[in-house]
């Protein structure tokens, strides 16, 4: 079967940025076709029906992408799919559907399921469920330690063979510095990435939101920024000690951004991600005790938010990942300090990222880099609009305006602070392995 993606602006940082046709045979991209000058005017809509062109390839299906952005499939390297164990919050199927509706072709799911993803059975189960769902590619992240207990290493070799791409204790930090050191060294032997959730649990104590003016006013126990940066600094030190790359999850503070920037300048192989809420919101969102603004790390101050944006702009932060964390009302319709941490993100991430482009903080290629190119490099997976590559492609309509309505989400989660937000721009087509898994053209 031949599919032609016709006339979109292909934005694949480091590879190409220009209007191209993309010819796909079954699951592979087989040809990237330059567009003739006269045809380019199709893009501005001045000429006739674009479907009339390119008949020489006799495609079975033509996707009209004129005026749209075509990117390599977006990758969200930080997602909680909740299955096995918490299927009432999300299943692999609903999570994968949310992913492709949000424009993601590949997602990495964190191991804090029940049972924990710390052996091949669980990893196999996750992958088989994702294949059954048949939408996004799911790359499981295994646990660093058995049962996330911080006591002994998991069998990384077995996890790797089962298809795990990285290890992390996400949701929990590795408090034991020796374990963290050994995890880095041991993971290196299997080519697994280590993703670190940075949080000093002793300093965080019983905190439930950012420490500062809002927490003081609301009478909520605070979590100072140092809770994160202390551990970011430790992990950078361990990264230097071992020479093994470490990827810092969900960066939320100015101190962390500064520490990572300094480390990168010294040549330390550290990479970092942030989530859309950390560049879109501040602790002010917690006023009125809104549990949809409760997550870990917490929403920070305006100064932190600006630092996150600067970190994205100057390359200190490599990746935008959502930390998609679905919860049900049972966990969120409760007192603030008792509410579960986390918000969903898969279906709002592209639109929130595009706000950074709209405000001139990132260019469009920068955004694609943070949501596709860099994650694929960090994870060591193939991705890109290249002849011979697997056909994982996202089409984005920059002009599509809409209002977020959580009730329409594919995710089981409704826990978003962005409900009712006015957005401009979204993913309108998601193709995984040559198959259109979501289309809203």
């Amino acid at each position, binding site marked *: 079967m031949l599919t032609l993606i016709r006339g979109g602006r292909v934005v694949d940082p480091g590879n190409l940025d220009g209007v191209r046709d993309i010819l796909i045979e079954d699951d592979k991209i087989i040809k990237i076709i330059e567009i003739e000058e006269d045809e380019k005017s199709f893009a501005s809509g001045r000429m006739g029906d674009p479907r009339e062109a390119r008949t020489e390839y006799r495609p079975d299906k033509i996707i009209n992408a004129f005026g749209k952005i075509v990117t390599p499939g977006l990758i969200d390297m930080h997602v909680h799919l909740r299955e096995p164990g918490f299927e009432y919050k999300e299943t692999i199927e609903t999570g994968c559907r949310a992913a492709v509706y949000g424009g993601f072709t590949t997602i990495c799911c964190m191991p804090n399921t029940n049972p924990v993803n710390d052996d091949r059975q669980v990893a196999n189960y996750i992958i088989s469920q994702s294949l059954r769902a048949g939408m996004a590619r799911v790359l499981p992240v295994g646990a660093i330690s058995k049962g996330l207990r911080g006591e002994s290493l998991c069998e990384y070799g077995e996890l790797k063979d089962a298809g795990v791409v990285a290890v992390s204790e996400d949701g929990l930090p590795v408090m034991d510095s020796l374990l963290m050191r050994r995890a880095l060294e041991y993971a290196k032997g299997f080519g697994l990435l280590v993703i670190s959730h940075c949080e000093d649990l002793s300093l965080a*104590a019983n905190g439930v939101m950012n*420490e*500062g*003016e809002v*927490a*003081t*006013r*609301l*009478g*909520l*126990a*605070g979590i*100072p920024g140092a809770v994160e940066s202390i551990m970011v600094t430790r992990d950078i030190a361990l990264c230097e000690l071992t020479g093994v790359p470490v990827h810092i999850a969900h960066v939320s503070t100015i101190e962390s951004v500064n520490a990572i920037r300094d480390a990168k300048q010294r040549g330390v192989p550290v990479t970092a991600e942030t989530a859309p809420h950390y560049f879109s919101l501040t602790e002010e969102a917690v006023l*009125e*005790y809104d549990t949809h603004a409760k997550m870990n790390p917490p929403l920070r101050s305006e100064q932190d938010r600006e630092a996150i944006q600067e970190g994205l702009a100057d390359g200190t932060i490599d990746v935008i990942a959502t930390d998609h964390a679905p919860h049900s009302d*049972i966990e969120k*319709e*409760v*007192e*603030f*300090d*008792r509410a579960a941490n986390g918000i969903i993100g898969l279906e709002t991430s592209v639109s929130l990222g595009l706000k950074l482009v709209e405000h001139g903080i990132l260019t469009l290629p920068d955004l694609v880099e943070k949501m596709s190119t860099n994650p694929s490099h960090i994870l060591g997976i193939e991705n890109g609009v290249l002849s011979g590559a697997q056909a994982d492609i996202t089409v984005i309509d920059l002009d599509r305006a809409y209002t977020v309505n959580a009730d329409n989400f594919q995710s089981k989660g409704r826990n978003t602070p962005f409900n009712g937000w006015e957005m401009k721009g979204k993913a309108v087509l998601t193709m995984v392995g040559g198959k259109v898994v979501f289309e809203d053209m």
Partner: protein
Amino acid sequence: MQFTKKDILDMDSLTADEINLILDTAEHMKEVSQRPIKKVPTLRGKTVVLFFYEPSTRTRVSFDIAAKRLSADCHSISAGTSSIVKGETLVDTAKNLEAMNPDVIIIRHPSAGAPHMLAKKLKASVINAGDGMHAHPTQSLLDLMTVRERKGRIKGQRVAIIGDISHSRVARSNCIGFTKMGASVVLAGPPTMIPMAVETLGVSVTHNIDEAIYGADVIMVLRIQKERQKGFLFSTEREYSRVYGLTNERLKNAREDALIMHPGPINRGVEISSEVADGPYSIILEQVTNGVAVRMALLLLVAGGARNVDAD
């Protein structure tokens, strides 16, 4: 002036005019409590539910007496005896209560914001009787009433609040309440017990108790909880008492007419010495008396006030 608030949640949401109205009403209510027959029929047929998720003696009895002196039917539920122990959520418990048509729900809860959550969900009036470290508006109002009664006015008074400000809902509500009414508030305590950015509430901070006491018209002492040693907030009660405890010796630096207040229960010999607690300037028990009057006033005002027809 008509009182239109459905709920009494914190001092932030009350205007100075509303606070004055509450205090004026409370003065009338105080007179009721001094009669030989301490009961008026004003709230006959109204139902008040006391919903206490945290242990309390003073505040609960105070509300109970206040409701009964106004002839309301008052029912008391505590966490240990209700379906809360069976795992029901706060919202479900409250909705079940509401199905029985109470007029006022008075809630004390260890979680900051719990009364806000209920107020949004319920048609009944909600009065916050203390939520976590957030607010204790009825305590603040009774403190304001007591100071106004003793000093004639609140405006221009210098109020020192001494102790664990971080964990005190009384301190938060009084910072907001006293500054709103024109007093100046200075906080004192070990730096471990002063919350970050507390100056944004319009108060000043010192770590020297003598500095706070000097020139103060009102000295309010907060209870020190022994379990805070676990969070490393102070070393020992012995040292706390030596450095921050209010004693007659320290009071020598205070104005001669300084009033000594404490929201109770007091730890004699820790944050306050017996001689000060029982001394001529202590108005700790007047605070308790006025507590009933203020709570009567609030019940009267909200039970006659607007209903939240939009609550879902």
